[in-house]
């Protein structure tokens, strides 16, 4: 489980190995957690962005090195959720990809960071680029599908 509960303000931390299957397991937990704690309407964008960032951290950051791990921390303070993902790689020049537009339709890669910036309310990298911090905002009750 991600955490037993997530009240108005709560934190949690998970460390996963550099395997894509661990991303699936974490995201399944997240899906259930979103349903249980009032984030159902945000479940898809949250999971999507988490997957993009974790995939990048594992494949590009840690280069799938099984000895390296990825740390995920989440802090919820409604209506905000802050997610921070840190890998053990050397980082990358995130400044060079800022403002990147939609790639040509026949390109099979290059959409991960674009998806991240499209679905998260705010995105920030640390200077070296091996840590990304994301902010999500809970939708107002009237727009939410929570019962």
């Amino acid at each position: 489980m991600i955490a037993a509960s997530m009240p108005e303000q709560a934190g949690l931390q998970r460390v996963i190995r550099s395997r894509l299957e661990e991303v699936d397991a974490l995201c399944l937990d997240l899906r259930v957690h979103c349903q249980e704690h009032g984030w159902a309407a945000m479940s898809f964008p949250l999971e999507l962005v988490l997957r993009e960032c974790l995939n990048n951290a594992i494949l590009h950051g840690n280069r799938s090195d099984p000895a390296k791990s990825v740390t995920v921390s989440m802090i919820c303070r409604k209506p905000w959720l802050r997610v921070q993902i840190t890998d053990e790689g050397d980082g990358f020049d995130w400044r060079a990809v800022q403002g990147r537009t939609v790639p040509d339709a026949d390109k099979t890669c290059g959409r991960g960071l674009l998806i991240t910036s499209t679905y998260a309310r705010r995105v920030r990298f640390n200077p070296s680029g091996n840590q990304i911090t994301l902010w999500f905002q809970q939708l107002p009750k009237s727009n939410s599908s929570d019962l």
Partner: protein
Amino acid sequence: MTANTIERQSGLCRVRLDGDLTASRVPELQALLKRELDQPIEEMVVDMTGTAMLDSSGIGLLIATFNSVGRKGGRFRIVNAAPPIFQLLQSMRLVNRLNVSGTSDVEVTHG
């Protein structure tokens, strides 16, 4: 473990995705599609009824498949995309390119 299925009727190929199309699952589906593309193809339909999540790796595979089918002179389309997936493909400007229809659309089958 998922079990994607493929139905063949001559040059018509319908791929039913079982579960999410995300990075860890791309290699398995890619191998399956590669085998299909070794045969002549007129149309490939990817049915996303069972798919709740699609990430950029999955999108990459769909584009690569579209490109391959096109090179062989075939048509490609995606049906029954859930609303969040349809919106994702819309935001990436791929709905028209990949001929995507959503779960709310009525699919008309000819023949």
